[in-house]
């Protein structure tokens, strides 16, 4: 397992990658929707920390963090965001369908919740392969209102699938608060009603969060059964796009201040990492990605003939 210093370093890498997107976005270098992971880096770092060879991860449209946490080939991801020929998917996938094939993060879906049933099938394959591997699926609280996610909880439990459900609960579906969307008060109790071992956790205590995520993986590896982890978190930016939106009236900036106090980047000392180290890492990654994004912007577009390749 990684040290806290390594986890913080990875979280900073992700944040500076996202900050770099913010700085180039208005130059139209990335001509597609982007759903930034700023403020939600830690969960992805912890998932990647638990990832073993042969494990699978299924993300969603907000998957920059998990892709960066798993990958070491950042250029392939940047090129993909830019729709370039040398992107990880030849520019055909972009931000909303990112993949890290070498780590079995196959592709991601922009249809809320729809990766969850696919994760059940992948977990079924892993169960049958009997290599002790597990699958992880990441989704937001809005996904739990999708029928397919509720169906998937039943399938995973009934078929006893080695699947870690990671619910990143930021309380929002775009602008719509949970209270308007659901009568489920306790997501863990809901998952438990399907007979799934469930764990509640929050970014408000990063050390405990890490311990609980690790325990979820230990449980699934040991039992082969699914586990559900709710991670309470905050989306610092707007749902889609590169801006903050604390000024438009649907939530209060004081909320952000609260969540920043638990942030392992802004306050790395809460996990025992010196703030000088984290500031240095921030500067280093900022420079690294500024250079890398500029270089990638010069790469060639896909050939016209590639439009019709790999359809059938």
């Amino acid at each position, binding site marked *: 397992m990684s040290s806290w210093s390594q986890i913080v370093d990875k979280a900073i890498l992700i944040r500076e990658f996202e900050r770099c997107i913010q700085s180039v976005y208005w130059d139209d270098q990335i001509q597609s929707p982007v759903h930034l992971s700023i403020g939600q880096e830690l969960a992805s770092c912890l998932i990647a920390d638990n990832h073993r060879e042969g494990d699978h991860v299924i993300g969603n449209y907000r998957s920059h963090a998990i892709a960066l946490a798993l990958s070491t080939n950042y250029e392939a991801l940047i090129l993909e965001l830019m729709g370039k020929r040398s992107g990880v998917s030849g520019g055909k*996938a972009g931000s909303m369908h990112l993949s890290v*094939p070498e780590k079995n993060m*196959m592709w991601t879906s922009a249809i809320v919740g729809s990766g969850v*049933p*696919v994760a059940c099938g992948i977990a079924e394959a892993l169960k049958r392969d009997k290599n002790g591997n597990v699958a992880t699926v990441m989704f937001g609280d809005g996904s739990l209102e999708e029928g*397919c996610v509720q*169906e*998937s909880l039943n*399938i995973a439990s009934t078929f006893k699938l080695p699947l870690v459900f990671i619910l990143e609960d930021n309380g929002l579906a775009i602008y719509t608060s949970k209270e308007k969307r659901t009568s489920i008060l306790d997501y863990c109790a809901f998952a438990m009603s399907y007979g799934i071992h469930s764990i509640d956790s929050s970014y408000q205590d990063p050390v405990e969060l890490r311990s609980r995520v690790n325990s979820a993986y230990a449980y699934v590896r040991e039992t082969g059964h699914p586990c559900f982890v709710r991670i309470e978190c905050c989306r610092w930016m707007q749902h889609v796009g590169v801006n903050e939106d604390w000024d438009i009236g649907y939530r209060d900036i004081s909320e952000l201040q609260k969540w920043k106090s638990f942030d392992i980047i802004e306050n790395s000392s809460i996990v025992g990492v010196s703030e000088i180290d984290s500031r240095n890492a921030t500067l280093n990654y900022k420079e690294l990605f500024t250079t890398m994004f500029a270089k990638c912007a010069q790469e060639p577009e896909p050939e016209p003939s590639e439009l019709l390749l790999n359809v*059938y």
Partner: protein
Amino acid sequence: MATSLHSGPVTYSEAIHAALAYQMEANPRVLVYGLGVDDPTAMYGTLSGFPERFGSDRCFDTPLSEDSLTGYGIGLAVAGYYPIHVHQRTDFLLLCCNQLINMAAKIKYLSNGKLGCPFVVRAITGRSWGQGSQHSQSFHSLFANIPGLRVLTPATPQDVYNVYINVFSTQVPTIVIEHRMLYGVKGTLQARTEVPSLSQIDCGNDLTICSVSHMTLEAEKAVIALTEYGITCDHFSLVNNSEINYEPLLKSAKKTGKVLIVDHGWLNASVATTLCSGLAQGGFNGKISLMGYKQSPCPTSRSLENLFYPTADSILGECARLMKINAPLSKLSISQEISSFKGPF
């Protein structure tokens, strides 16, 4: 070479059984699942003995969650398995559209060819005994509109056998529309090395017919009746709706100058109209006529249902109109597989 219908030792359902048993035998990573696949009726006999022979973990029943179980099949397929998801009625595929269209059809493209999705959906279209508006639909045209999906409508034992024998030779997600009324059709089997595209049912010189699914049976009855009037037909049955092979159709159409397309679905925005435009773009400028479902939901009442579908008799009538036959036509009775069908399901 034309395929003969109603002769030969093997039924359509036996052909499916033989081909799927071959797949299960050849590769332990082939799985069959869906509601009721291991029940005593064994999906019209097509999976008879499978749980005992291949294990209850390879032919298994599921929760009633068609949508998610489609995603589940996709997940299995991208992780190295060859799942076959069975639906007793094609109508339930509408519950699976998100996974089929948004997920399965995009995998190869979005992974830039790194991933395939060898996922097969068997969907059975019903008819008669009041199957009505929600147990009778055939959505081949709807799904054929989607790039990245392959939609197959085999109508003969030979075609369905070769569909399933070769279904995993590519990693394209595939929907096979079977028809309840086809299960008793008899034929001979000859293994081929690829999924058939267009199958020639009969050969002739005067009229070209292209039919889909159960309409192949109905149209062939009309073809046989036309020989009494000295008229012979090239009759093709469309199997691959997604990548249509126009060459044999165009060659025949240019020879006969007259084409009748008999679809097993509504005509608006259909594979029938696609065939029509393909023929026109290929340089055919003769007469074309189209038949298909009437533009209404399928009624439960048998008397109305008989009006809803093209029948052997109405197809014969349309052929006579195209061929300008003035002699009185002999009346073709309702096909035996329809008239003799009793439920409860």
